[in-house]
Protein backbone atom coordinates (compact mmCIF):
# COMPACT_ATOMS: atom_id res chain seq x y z
CA UNK A 1 0.00 0.00 0.00
CA UNK A 2 1.16 3.52 -0.87
CA UNK A 3 0.61 6.32 1.59
CA UNK A 4 1.70 9.82 0.69
CA UNK A 5 0.97 13.21 2.16
CA UNK A 6 2.95 15.93 0.43
CA UNK A 7 3.16 19.63 -0.24
CA UNK A 8 5.35 21.18 -2.86
CA UNK A 9 5.51 24.86 -3.69
CA UNK A 10 5.67 25.40 -7.43
CA UNK A 11 6.08 28.82 -9.00
CA UNK A 12 2.38 29.26 -9.85
CA UNK A 13 0.61 27.13 -7.18
CA UNK A 14 1.17 24.83 -4.24
CA UNK A 15 0.74 21.12 -4.76
CA UNK A 16 -1.12 19.52 -1.86
CA UNK A 17 -1.44 15.74 -2.13
CA UNK A 18 -2.82 13.09 0.22
CA UNK A 19 -2.90 9.55 -1.14
CA UNK A 20 -3.65 6.17 0.38
CA UNK A 21 -3.81 3.58 -2.38
CA UNK A 22 -3.87 -0.18 -2.12
CA UNK A 23 -3.01 -2.44 -5.05
CA UNK A 24 -5.20 -0.45 -7.40
CA UNK A 25 -4.84 1.76 -10.46
CA UNK A 26 -5.06 5.44 -9.54
CA UNK A 27 -5.57 7.75 -12.49
CA UNK A 28 -4.43 11.36 -12.31
CA UNK A 29 -6.39 13.14 -14.98
CA UNK A 30 -5.84 16.76 -15.90
CA UNK A 31 -4.53 19.29 -18.38
CA UNK A 32 -0.84 20.13 -18.90
CA UNK A 33 0.60 22.10 -16.01
CA UNK A 34 -1.83 20.74 -13.42
CA UNK A 35 0.97 19.05 -11.46
CA UNK A 36 0.40 15.42 -12.53
CA UNK A 37 3.98 14.66 -13.56
CA UNK A 38 5.33 16.57 -10.54
CA UNK A 39 3.42 14.16 -8.26
CA UNK A 40 5.11 11.20 -9.98
CA UNK A 41 8.53 12.91 -9.65
CA UNK A 42 7.93 13.49 -5.93
CA UNK A 43 6.96 9.87 -5.37
CA UNK A 44 9.93 8.55 -7.36
CA UNK A 45 12.37 10.82 -5.50
CA UNK A 46 13.31 12.83 -8.60
CA UNK A 47 12.04 16.00 -6.87
CA UNK A 48 11.96 16.81 -3.18
CA UNK A 49 8.71 17.87 -1.50
CA UNK A 50 8.68 20.87 0.83
CA UNK A 51 7.22 18.67 3.53
CA UNK A 52 5.28 15.47 4.05
CA UNK A 53 5.59 11.70 4.17
CA UNK A 54 5.82 8.89 1.60
CA UNK A 55 5.44 5.31 2.74
CA UNK A 56 5.13 2.04 0.81
CA UNK A 57 4.17 -1.08 2.78
CA UNK A 58 5.39 0.44 6.07
CA UNK A 59 8.74 1.45 4.57
CA UNK A 60 9.24 5.21 4.85
CA UNK A 61 10.75 6.70 1.69
CA UNK A 62 10.44 10.35 2.62
CA UNK A 63 9.67 12.07 5.88
CA UNK A 64 10.25 15.77 6.43
CA UNK A 65 9.67 15.24 10.17
CA UNK A 66 12.40 12.57 10.41
CA UNK A 67 14.56 14.38 7.83
CA UNK A 68 14.64 11.22 5.74
CA UNK A 69 14.82 11.20 1.96
CA UNK A 70 15.61 7.87 0.31
CA UNK A 71 17.35 8.35 -3.05
CA UNK A 72 15.48 7.33 -6.25
CA UNK A 73 17.76 4.31 -6.79
CA UNK A 74 16.82 2.85 -3.41
CA UNK A 75 13.06 3.49 -3.53
CA UNK A 76 12.21 0.53 -5.76
CA UNK A 77 9.60 2.45 -7.70
CA UNK A 78 9.17 1.72 -11.41
CA UNK A 79 8.70 4.71 -13.69
CA UNK A 80 7.47 4.53 -17.26
CA UNK A 81 8.22 7.89 -18.87
CA UNK A 82 6.27 9.52 -21.65
CA UNK A 83 7.98 8.43 -24.92
CA UNK A 84 9.47 5.58 -22.81
CA UNK A 85 13.05 6.97 -22.49
CA UNK A 86 14.72 3.76 -23.66
CA UNK A 87 18.52 4.06 -23.70
CA UNK A 88 19.23 4.65 -27.40
CA UNK A 89 22.82 3.33 -27.24
CA UNK A 90 21.73 -0.04 -25.86
CA UNK A 91 19.90 -2.98 -27.38
CA UNK A 92 16.52 -4.12 -26.03
CA UNK A 93 18.31 -6.83 -24.01
CA UNK A 94 20.78 -4.30 -22.53
CA UNK A 95 17.94 -1.92 -21.71
CA UNK A 96 16.05 -4.57 -19.77
CA UNK A 97 19.17 -5.92 -18.04
CA UNK A 98 20.25 -2.39 -17.08
CA UNK A 99 18.40 -2.28 -13.77
CA UNK A 100 19.58 -5.76 -12.78
CA UNK A 101 23.22 -4.69 -13.10
CA UNK A 102 22.81 -1.98 -10.49
CA UNK A 103 24.04 -2.70 -6.97
CA UNK A 104 20.56 -2.47 -5.49
CA UNK A 105 19.15 -5.19 -7.74
CA UNK A 106 22.06 -7.56 -8.29
CA UNK A 107 20.55 -10.08 -5.90
CA UNK A 108 17.36 -10.22 -8.00
CA UNK A 109 19.12 -11.61 -11.03
CA UNK A 110 18.34 -15.25 -10.18
CA UNK A 111 14.74 -14.55 -9.34
CA UNK A 112 13.77 -12.78 -12.55
CA UNK A 113 14.48 -13.73 -16.14
CA UNK A 114 14.35 -10.53 -18.22
CA UNK A 115 14.24 -12.37 -21.54
CA UNK A 116 11.29 -14.44 -20.36
CA UNK A 117 9.59 -11.23 -19.28
CA UNK A 118 10.20 -9.75 -22.74
CA UNK A 119 8.67 -12.88 -24.31
CA UNK A 120 5.63 -12.52 -22.07
CA UNK A 121 5.23 -8.98 -23.43
CA UNK A 122 5.49 -10.29 -27.00
CA UNK A 123 8.80 -8.58 -27.75
CA UNK A 124 11.18 -11.43 -26.97
CA UNK A 125 12.22 -11.65 -30.62
CA UNK A 126 13.49 -8.05 -30.56
CA UNK A 127 16.23 -8.49 -27.94
CA UNK A 128 19.10 -7.56 -30.26
CA UNK A 129 17.46 -4.49 -31.77
CA UNK A 130 18.08 -0.90 -30.74
CA UNK A 131 15.18 1.38 -29.68
CA UNK A 132 15.43 3.30 -32.97
CA UNK A 133 14.36 0.13 -34.79
CA UNK A 134 11.17 -0.38 -32.74
CA UNK A 135 7.60 0.83 -33.23
CA UNK A 136 5.84 2.91 -30.55
CA UNK A 137 3.97 -0.11 -29.15
CA UNK A 138 7.13 -2.24 -29.05
CA UNK A 139 9.01 0.54 -27.27
CA UNK A 140 6.28 0.74 -24.67
CA UNK A 141 6.36 -3.01 -24.02
CA UNK A 142 10.16 -2.96 -23.67
CA UNK A 143 9.96 0.03 -21.31
CA UNK A 144 7.34 -1.77 -19.22
CA UNK A 145 9.51 -4.88 -19.04
CA UNK A 146 12.51 -2.73 -18.04
CA UNK A 147 10.51 -1.04 -15.28
CA UNK A 148 9.05 -4.31 -13.94
CA UNK A 149 12.14 -6.53 -14.12
CA UNK A 150 13.50 -4.95 -10.91
CA UNK A 151 10.26 -5.93 -9.10
CA UNK A 152 9.05 -2.46 -8.09
CA UNK A 153 6.59 -1.97 -5.26
CA UNK A 154 4.83 0.82 -7.14
CA UNK A 155 4.61 1.57 -10.85
CA UNK A 156 4.28 5.14 -12.13
CA UNK A 157 3.14 5.60 -15.71
CA UNK A 158 3.41 9.08 -17.24
CA UNK A 159 1.11 9.43 -20.27
CA UNK A 160 1.99 5.90 -21.45
CA UNK A 161 -0.29 5.97 -24.50
CA UNK A 162 0.16 9.52 -25.74
CA UNK A 163 2.66 8.64 -28.48
CA UNK A 164 0.59 5.76 -29.91
CA UNK A 165 -2.00 5.45 -32.66
CA UNK A 166 -5.59 4.61 -31.65
CA UNK A 167 -5.46 0.84 -32.32
CA UNK A 168 -2.18 0.30 -30.47
CA UNK A 169 -3.48 2.48 -27.68
CA UNK A 170 -6.59 0.33 -27.21
CA UNK A 171 -4.66 -2.93 -27.27
CA UNK A 172 -2.03 -1.64 -24.79
CA UNK A 173 -4.73 -0.42 -22.40
CA UNK A 174 -5.91 -4.02 -22.13
CA UNK A 175 -2.34 -5.19 -21.57
CA UNK A 176 -1.75 -2.68 -18.77
CA UNK A 177 -4.98 -3.79 -17.10
CA UNK A 178 -3.88 -7.45 -17.37
CA UNK A 179 -0.42 -6.57 -16.14
CA UNK A 180 -1.85 -4.89 -13.06
CA UNK A 181 -3.93 -7.94 -12.22
CA UNK A 182 -0.84 -10.12 -12.49
CA UNK A 183 1.62 -7.90 -10.55
CA UNK A 184 -0.72 -6.77 -7.76
CA UNK A 185 1.08 -3.53 -6.90
CA UNK A 186 -0.30 0.03 -6.95
CA UNK A 187 -0.15 1.72 -10.37
CA UNK A 188 -0.42 5.50 -10.69
CA UNK A 189 -1.16 6.52 -14.24
CA UNK A 190 -1.09 10.09 -15.50
CA UNK A 191 -3.20 10.95 -18.53
CA UNK A 192 -5.26 13.69 -20.05
CA UNK A 193 -7.42 11.19 -21.94
CA UNK A 194 -10.78 10.42 -20.31
CA UNK A 195 -11.16 7.13 -22.20
CA UNK A 196 -7.90 5.84 -20.69
CA UNK A 197 -9.10 6.95 -17.28
CA UNK A 198 -12.50 5.27 -17.58
CA UNK A 199 -11.10 2.01 -18.87
CA UNK A 200 -8.17 1.62 -16.48
CA UNK A 201 -8.93 3.54 -13.33
CA UNK A 202 -10.03 1.97 -10.07
CA UNK A 203 -9.90 5.52 -8.76
CA UNK A 204 -9.79 8.61 -10.96
CA UNK A 205 -8.90 12.07 -9.75
CA UNK A 206 -9.23 15.16 -11.92
CA UNK A 207 -6.50 17.66 -11.18
CA UNK A 208 -6.31 21.37 -11.68
CA UNK A 209 -3.38 23.44 -10.38
CA UNK A 210 -2.23 20.75 -7.97
CA UNK A 211 -5.64 20.17 -6.41
CA UNK A 212 -8.52 17.90 -7.26
CA UNK A 213 -11.67 19.56 -8.49
CA UNK A 214 -13.17 19.14 -4.99
CA UNK A 215 -10.34 20.67 -2.97
CA UNK A 216 -6.88 19.36 -2.04
CA UNK A 217 -5.97 16.10 -3.73
CA UNK A 218 -7.22 13.64 -1.17
CA UNK A 219 -7.52 10.00 -2.17
CA UNK A 220 -8.11 7.35 0.44
CA UNK A 221 -8.93 4.06 -1.16
CA UNK A 222 -8.25 0.59 0.17
CA UNK A 223 -9.48 -2.76 -1.03
Amino acid sequence: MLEASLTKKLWHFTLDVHLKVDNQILILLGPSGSGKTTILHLLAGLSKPNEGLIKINDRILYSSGKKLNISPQSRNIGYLFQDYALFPHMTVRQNVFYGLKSKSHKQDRAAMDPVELLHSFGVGHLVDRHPGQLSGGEKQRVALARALVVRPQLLLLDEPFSALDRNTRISLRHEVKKLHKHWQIPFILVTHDEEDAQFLGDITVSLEKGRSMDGSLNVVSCN
Partner: protein
Amino acid sequence: MVNPRIGFFQGIFWLVFILITIFMVVMVGGLLFYGEWAAFLSVIQNPEFHFAVVFTLWTSLLATALAAVVAVPCGFILSRYHFRGKALIDALMDIPIVLPPLVSGLALLILFGPVLGNTLARLSLDVVFSARGVVVAQWFIATPFAIKTFKQAFDAIDPRLENVARTLGCSPTDVFLRVTMPLAKGGVLGGLTMAWARALGEFGATAMLAGITRMKTETLSVAIFLNMTIGDMQFAIATAVIMLIVALLLMSVFKVVTGTGVRL
Protein backbone atom coordinates in the same frame (compact mmCIF):
# COMPACT_ATOMS: atom_id res chain seq x y z
CA MET B 1 20.16 18.21 -53.23
CA VAL B 2 20.84 21.65 -54.72
CA ASN B 3 18.16 23.04 -56.96
CA PRO B 4 19.72 23.29 -60.47
CA ARG B 5 17.97 26.63 -61.03
CA ILE B 6 19.93 29.15 -59.00
CA GLY B 7 18.42 32.60 -58.62
CA PHE B 8 20.22 35.90 -58.06
CA PHE B 9 20.08 35.60 -54.26
CA GLN B 10 21.55 32.08 -54.17
CA GLY B 11 24.00 33.13 -56.88
CA ILE B 12 25.53 35.76 -54.58
CA PHE B 13 25.89 33.17 -51.81
CA TRP B 14 27.54 30.70 -54.19
CA LEU B 15 29.91 33.41 -55.46
CA VAL B 16 31.07 34.25 -51.93
CA PHE B 17 31.38 30.53 -51.10
CA ILE B 18 33.48 29.84 -54.22
CA LEU B 19 35.71 32.90 -53.71
CA ILE B 20 36.52 32.03 -50.09
CA THR B 21 37.21 28.41 -51.11
CA ILE B 22 39.63 29.62 -53.81
CA PHE B 23 41.28 31.96 -51.29
CA MET B 24 41.83 29.10 -48.81
CA VAL B 25 43.14 26.74 -51.51
CA VAL B 26 45.59 29.37 -52.85
CA MET B 27 46.77 30.19 -49.32
CA VAL B 28 47.36 26.55 -48.41
CA GLY B 29 48.87 25.87 -51.85
CA GLY B 30 51.25 28.82 -51.42
CA LEU B 31 52.49 27.40 -48.16
CA LEU B 32 52.86 23.92 -49.64
CA PHE B 33 54.65 24.92 -52.84
CA TYR B 34 56.70 27.94 -51.77
CA GLY B 35 59.28 25.85 -49.94
CA GLU B 36 61.87 23.67 -51.62
CA TRP B 37 61.38 19.93 -51.42
CA ALA B 38 65.09 19.24 -50.73
CA ALA B 39 65.10 21.78 -47.91
CA PHE B 40 61.94 20.23 -46.52
CA LEU B 41 63.60 16.81 -46.38
CA SER B 42 66.68 18.22 -44.66
CA VAL B 43 64.51 20.06 -42.11
CA ILE B 44 62.62 16.95 -41.10
CA GLN B 45 65.98 15.27 -40.32
CA ASN B 46 67.05 18.22 -38.15
CA PRO B 47 67.35 17.40 -34.38
CA GLU B 48 65.74 20.73 -33.50
CA PHE B 49 62.72 19.80 -35.61
CA HIS B 50 62.55 16.37 -33.93
CA PHE B 51 62.68 18.02 -30.52
CA ALA B 52 59.87 20.45 -31.45
CA VAL B 53 57.65 17.65 -32.81
CA VAL B 54 58.11 15.36 -29.79
CA PHE B 55 57.87 18.26 -27.32
CA THR B 56 54.69 19.60 -28.96
CA LEU B 57 53.10 16.16 -29.02
CA TRP B 58 53.61 15.30 -25.37
CA THR B 59 52.85 18.75 -24.02
CA SER B 60 49.69 19.15 -26.10
CA LEU B 61 48.43 15.63 -25.31
CA LEU B 62 49.05 16.15 -21.60
CA ALA B 63 47.35 19.57 -21.75
CA THR B 64 44.36 18.01 -23.56
CA ALA B 65 44.07 15.23 -20.96
CA LEU B 66 44.16 17.84 -18.18
CA ALA B 67 41.59 19.94 -20.07
CA ALA B 68 39.29 16.89 -20.23
CA VAL B 69 39.66 16.30 -16.48
CA VAL B 70 38.43 19.86 -15.88
CA ALA B 71 35.92 20.09 -18.74
CA VAL B 72 33.88 16.97 -17.90
CA PRO B 73 32.65 18.18 -14.48
CA CYS B 74 32.45 21.84 -15.56
CA GLY B 75 30.51 21.05 -18.76
CA PHE B 76 28.18 18.74 -16.81
CA ILE B 77 27.46 21.31 -14.08
CA LEU B 78 26.85 24.08 -16.63
CA SER B 79 24.52 21.77 -18.54
CA ARG B 80 22.51 20.24 -15.69
CA TYR B 81 22.33 22.78 -12.87
CA HIS B 82 20.80 26.22 -12.57
CA PHE B 83 22.25 28.51 -9.92
CA ARG B 84 22.70 32.17 -9.17
CA GLY B 85 25.58 33.73 -11.12
CA LYS B 86 25.73 30.87 -13.66
CA ALA B 87 25.86 33.26 -16.65
CA LEU B 88 28.73 35.16 -15.05
CA ILE B 89 30.73 31.98 -14.30
CA ASP B 90 30.03 30.70 -17.82
CA ALA B 91 31.36 34.00 -19.21
CA LEU B 92 34.40 33.79 -16.90
CA MET B 93 35.25 30.35 -18.28
CA ASP B 94 35.12 31.79 -21.80
CA ILE B 95 37.79 34.39 -21.01
CA PRO B 96 40.66 32.46 -22.62
CA ILE B 97 38.60 32.32 -25.86
CA VAL B 98 37.96 36.06 -26.05
CA LEU B 99 41.23 37.36 -24.62
CA PRO B 100 44.25 37.66 -26.93
CA PRO B 101 46.58 34.74 -26.00
CA LEU B 102 49.31 37.25 -25.09
CA VAL B 103 47.04 38.76 -22.44
CA SER B 104 46.15 35.28 -21.14
CA GLY B 105 49.89 34.56 -21.01
CA LEU B 106 50.54 37.76 -19.10
CA ALA B 107 47.81 36.90 -16.56
CA LEU B 108 49.28 33.40 -16.15
CA LEU B 109 52.78 34.86 -15.80
CA ILE B 110 51.60 37.10 -12.94
CA LEU B 111 49.73 34.21 -11.26
CA PHE B 112 52.59 31.72 -11.48
CA GLY B 113 55.31 34.39 -10.98
CA PRO B 114 54.75 37.03 -8.30
CA VAL B 115 51.63 35.43 -6.81
CA LEU B 116 52.39 31.69 -6.56
CA GLY B 117 56.02 31.61 -7.76
CA ASN B 118 57.77 31.31 -4.37
CA THR B 119 55.40 28.60 -3.09
CA LEU B 120 55.77 26.58 -6.30
CA ALA B 121 59.58 26.99 -6.20
CA ARG B 122 59.65 25.59 -2.64
CA LEU B 123 57.72 22.56 -3.91
CA SER B 124 60.07 22.29 -6.92
CA LEU B 125 57.11 22.88 -9.22
CA ASP B 126 58.30 25.96 -11.11
CA VAL B 127 56.01 26.82 -13.97
CA VAL B 128 57.47 30.02 -15.39
CA PHE B 129 60.02 29.53 -18.23
CA SER B 130 59.78 25.73 -18.06
CA ALA B 131 58.18 22.86 -19.95
CA ARG B 132 55.56 22.80 -17.20
CA GLY B 133 54.67 26.36 -18.24
CA VAL B 134 54.07 25.18 -21.81
CA VAL B 135 51.57 22.56 -20.57
CA VAL B 136 49.84 25.10 -18.30
CA ALA B 137 49.52 27.66 -21.12
CA GLN B 138 48.20 25.07 -23.59
CA TRP B 139 45.79 23.70 -20.96
CA PHE B 140 44.51 27.19 -20.14
CA ILE B 141 43.82 28.05 -23.77
CA ALA B 142 42.34 24.63 -24.69
CA THR B 143 40.08 24.07 -21.66
CA PRO B 144 37.28 26.54 -22.54
CA PHE B 145 36.85 24.87 -25.96
CA ALA B 146 36.51 21.49 -24.24
CA ILE B 147 34.04 22.88 -21.66
CA LYS B 148 31.88 24.44 -24.38
CA THR B 149 31.71 21.31 -26.54
CA PHE B 150 31.22 18.98 -23.57
CA LYS B 151 28.38 21.18 -22.28
CA GLN B 152 26.69 21.03 -25.68
CA ALA B 153 27.11 17.24 -25.71
CA PHE B 154 25.50 16.94 -22.25
CA ASP B 155 22.73 19.40 -23.24
CA ALA B 156 21.79 17.10 -26.12
CA ILE B 157 21.03 14.18 -23.75
CA ASP B 158 17.43 13.88 -22.57
CA PRO B 159 17.60 14.16 -18.73
CA ARG B 160 14.76 11.63 -18.52
CA LEU B 161 17.24 8.94 -19.55
CA GLU B 162 19.29 9.76 -16.45
CA ASN B 163 16.13 9.87 -14.31
CA VAL B 164 14.90 6.49 -15.53
CA ALA B 165 18.32 5.00 -14.78
CA ARG B 166 18.05 6.32 -11.20
CA THR B 167 14.63 4.71 -10.75
CA LEU B 168 16.13 1.42 -11.99
CA GLY B 169 18.45 1.40 -8.99
CA CYS B 170 21.61 3.06 -10.31
CA SER B 171 23.71 5.54 -8.34
CA PRO B 172 24.50 8.96 -9.89
CA THR B 173 28.07 7.76 -10.65
CA ASP B 174 26.78 4.65 -12.36
CA VAL B 175 24.26 6.68 -14.36
CA PHE B 176 26.99 9.09 -15.46
CA LEU B 177 29.35 6.31 -16.53
CA ARG B 178 26.79 4.01 -18.17
CA VAL B 179 24.25 6.44 -19.63
CA THR B 180 25.53 10.03 -19.80
CA MET B 181 29.09 9.46 -21.01
CA PRO B 182 28.30 6.83 -23.67
CA LEU B 183 25.59 9.12 -25.07
CA ALA B 184 27.88 12.17 -24.99
CA LYS B 185 30.77 10.20 -26.56
CA GLY B 186 30.59 11.88 -29.99
CA GLY B 187 30.54 15.41 -28.58
CA VAL B 188 33.24 14.62 -26.03
CA LEU B 189 35.55 13.18 -28.70
CA GLY B 190 34.87 16.22 -30.89
CA GLY B 191 35.63 18.52 -27.94
CA LEU B 192 38.87 16.69 -27.23
CA THR B 193 39.90 17.02 -30.88
CA MET B 194 39.18 20.77 -30.79
CA ALA B 195 41.06 21.17 -27.51
CA TRP B 196 44.05 19.23 -28.85
CA ALA B 197 44.07 21.28 -32.07
CA ARG B 198 44.04 24.47 -29.98
CA ALA B 199 46.84 23.22 -27.69
CA LEU B 200 48.89 22.07 -30.69
CA GLY B 201 48.97 25.52 -32.27
CA GLU B 202 49.25 27.58 -29.06
CA PHE B 203 51.90 30.30 -29.20
CA GLY B 204 51.04 33.60 -27.46
CA ALA B 205 50.35 32.37 -23.93
CA THR B 206 53.17 29.81 -24.19
CA ALA B 207 55.65 32.51 -25.21
CA MET B 208 54.65 34.73 -22.26
CA LEU B 209 54.60 32.02 -19.58
CA ALA B 210 57.22 29.51 -20.70
CA GLY B 211 59.41 31.79 -22.81
CA ILE B 212 60.91 31.18 -26.24
CA THR B 213 63.96 29.03 -25.58
CA ARG B 214 65.45 26.85 -28.31
CA MET B 215 65.44 23.12 -27.48
CA LYS B 216 63.84 23.79 -24.08
CA THR B 217 60.37 25.26 -24.50
CA GLU B 218 60.39 24.97 -28.28
CA THR B 219 57.00 23.84 -29.57
CA LEU B 220 56.35 23.74 -33.33
CA SER B 221 54.77 27.23 -33.18
CA VAL B 222 57.74 28.55 -31.22
CA ALA B 223 60.09 26.85 -33.71
CA ILE B 224 58.42 28.71 -36.61
CA PHE B 225 58.77 32.02 -34.77
CA LEU B 226 62.39 31.40 -33.72
CA ASN B 227 63.50 30.43 -37.23
CA MET B 228 61.61 33.27 -38.90
CA THR B 229 63.39 35.77 -36.64
CA ILE B 230 66.80 34.49 -37.76
CA GLY B 231 65.71 34.36 -41.41
CA ASP B 232 65.57 30.55 -41.80
CA MET B 233 62.48 30.53 -44.03
CA GLN B 234 62.88 26.89 -45.12
CA PHE B 235 62.75 25.61 -41.54
CA ALA B 236 59.74 27.80 -40.79
CA ILE B 237 57.90 26.69 -43.94
CA ALA B 238 58.60 22.99 -43.37
CA THR B 239 57.32 23.25 -39.81
CA ALA B 240 54.27 25.23 -40.95
CA VAL B 241 53.47 22.58 -43.61
CA ILE B 242 53.59 19.81 -41.01
CA MET B 243 51.29 21.83 -38.73
CA LEU B 244 48.93 22.54 -41.61
CA ILE B 245 48.62 18.85 -42.48
CA VAL B 246 48.02 17.94 -38.82
CA ALA B 247 45.40 20.73 -38.50
CA LEU B 248 43.57 19.58 -41.63
CA LEU B 249 43.55 15.99 -40.39
CA LEU B 250 42.33 17.02 -36.93
CA MET B 251 39.52 19.19 -38.28
CA SER B 252 38.40 16.45 -40.66
CA VAL B 253 38.32 13.94 -37.78
CA PHE B 254 36.37 16.48 -35.68
CA LYS B 255 33.76 17.04 -38.38
CA VAL B 256 33.32 13.33 -39.07
CA VAL B 257 33.17 12.37 -35.38
CA THR B 258 30.70 15.10 -34.44
CA GLY B 259 28.75 14.92 -37.69
CA THR B 260 29.03 18.70 -38.09
CA GLY B 261 30.58 18.64 -41.52
CA VAL B 262 30.48 16.96 -44.90
CA ARG B 263 31.46 13.32 -44.53
CA LEU B 264 34.80 12.36 -46.01
